[in-house]
């Protein structure tokens, strides 16, 4: 009997482990991809895809909206919706259409757990001027009025961002800020790096920060994350260890929600030189900027002095007793 129960128990446990987590939330949406980066030379009929999924157990009817955005004031890549584009073509959104199959849609129904793949079509005519346009494709749940008393109805929306770059243009920009605290006691050392894009198209700068010690040796290298910097904006650049499993870095990032570049080296002593080496695009330009900082582990030194003093005192007392 015992032998029969064991395989039954194993089978039951295995089956339960494959049961997916049910979303009890009345509204739950997912979207992919989170961003579409499009570079087009007129004339062009751009076709790409967006997948929207209803991950709840309730049916959803969602309207589809397009809204221009720019970067939020925090310079961290978050979106701020605006009323109109700064670019020359204020009717650019009229050239953007969303299709489900062959049918253009402005709203769609999603059954529980259903996903739909939509086609985003952007028709760029030959005479379209060179410029960038940034907009979000937003899916917002519609609501059903009730006859209840005194209520607020929450509607949920989810968006994907489109960076549309029309025409050619050279990357232009500069390092607007590169700094670190002049004195640190120990690492990780935070660097602030901001890049200004003065060109007409969005860029994704690449590069690193090299750290040299007082002997001129390169002892640290931190790669930056190639995040997008929108035209005519400045963005704070994070480092490439954003998904590091280091607990100390995770804690630092939670305490400092603004993008920083962290050099994780902990024990530091003396003067250091950090140089940011940035390439704005595959064809340049290359930018460099240097900053300096000084590290002195004052707490560690004080503790060491105390311990050594204590040891010396014991030695003296032992020696005196031996002499006696």
């Amino acid at each position, binding site marked *: 009997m015992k032998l029969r129960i064991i395989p039954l128990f194993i089978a039951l446990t295995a089956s339960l482990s494959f049961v997916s987590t049910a979303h009890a939330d009345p509204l739950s949406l*997912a979207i992919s991809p989170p961003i579409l980066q499009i570079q087009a030379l007129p004339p062009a009929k751009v076709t790409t895809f967006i997948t929207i999924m209803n991950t709840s157990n309730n049916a959803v009817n969602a309207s589809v909206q397009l809204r221009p955005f720019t970067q939020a004031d925090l310079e961290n890549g978050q979106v701020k919706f605006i009323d109109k584009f700064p670019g020359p073509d204020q009717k650019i959104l009229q050239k953007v259409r969303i299709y489900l199959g062959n049918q253009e849609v402005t709203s769609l129904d999603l059954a529980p757990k259903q996903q739909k793949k939509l086609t985003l079509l952007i028709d760029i005519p030959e005479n379209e001027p060179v410029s960038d346009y940034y907009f979000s494709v937003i899916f917002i749940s519609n609501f059903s009025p009730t006859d209840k008393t005194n209520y607020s109805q929450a509607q949920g929306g989810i968006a994907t961002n489109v960076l549309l770059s029309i025409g050619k243009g050279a990357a232009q920009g500069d390092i607007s800020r590169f700094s670190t605290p002049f004195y640190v006691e120990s690492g990780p050392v935070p660097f602030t790096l901001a890049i200004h894009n003065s060109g007409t198209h969005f860029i994704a700068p690449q590069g*690193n920060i090299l750290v040299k010690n007082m002997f001129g040796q390169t002892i640290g*290298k931190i790669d930056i994350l190639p995040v997008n910097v929108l035209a005519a904006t400045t963005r704070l650049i994070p480092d490439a*260890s954003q998904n590091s499993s280091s607990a100390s870095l995770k804690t630092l990032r939670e305490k400092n929600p603004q993008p920083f570049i962290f050099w994780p080296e902990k024990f530091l002593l003396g003067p250091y030189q950090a140089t940011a080496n940035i390439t704005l695009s595959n064809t340049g330009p290359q930018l460099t900027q240097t900053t300096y900082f000084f590290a002195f582990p004052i707490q560690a030194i004080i503790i060491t002095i105390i311990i050594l003093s204590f040891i010396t005192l014991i030695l003296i007392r032992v020696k005196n007793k031996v002499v006696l």
Partner: protein
Amino acid sequence: MKRLKLFFLSAFILIFSIFTNKALALTMSNNNFMLQMGNFNSFSGVTSGNNKNLSFTSGETASGLYSSGNYKVRAGFQYIRSIIGFSFSIDQTFVDFGTLSPGSPVTRTNNLKISNGSAYGYSVTAFETHPLQIIANGVMIPDTTCDNGTCSEVIASGWSSPLTYGFGYRCDAVTTPNQCNSDFNSTNDPSGTNFKQFANNAAGKTPQSVMSGSNVGKNMQVQITYKVNISATQAAGNYINNIVYVATPSF
């Protein structure tokens, strides 16, 4: 003498152990490259060296690069591979205030949840279609200006007096800290009584961020508290509005 040597050795070991860092990451480097991994067991990391970069992550969705004719499309971020994706949920879409009594504030809550694995950052902006309003005749419960009369859709302030009327909200992080707007963090709101107005879309106000983050994460949750209080002169009726939350990944 032997004892002294032993003592010195012990002291050295003690000092060394205090000030030696734990190696949380495996780092290998030479003059040409540096490999940095999250931990010994990780299956992802970034390598770089000699101007060549390679990023790798275990399994999951690849971001696509498509080109055709006169255009190129990159879908997703090349530097992120994750199965978490980007999703947003609201646990309660119907916020029922019930019958309102003058001078007796009513609070209700719902939770917003974000899973953000496909972008390093997100924000959830919110606006109200209009203040709580009787649709038939347009009579409104105005948005609160808080106890000191200063709060708006961009400024938060304390609201604890039962003689302060109106409608507003506050945000409290449930899981990951610092996900709510900084007006509600422990530095700016130590007593936890700050409230704000929702941006009034009918008045042309700009939607405001209520929740944001700059990292990847799963099931990051905040609680929104809605508060409404009416004066004795408030007209009787059914007051309703819509609160629209839009979750947008960072670019």
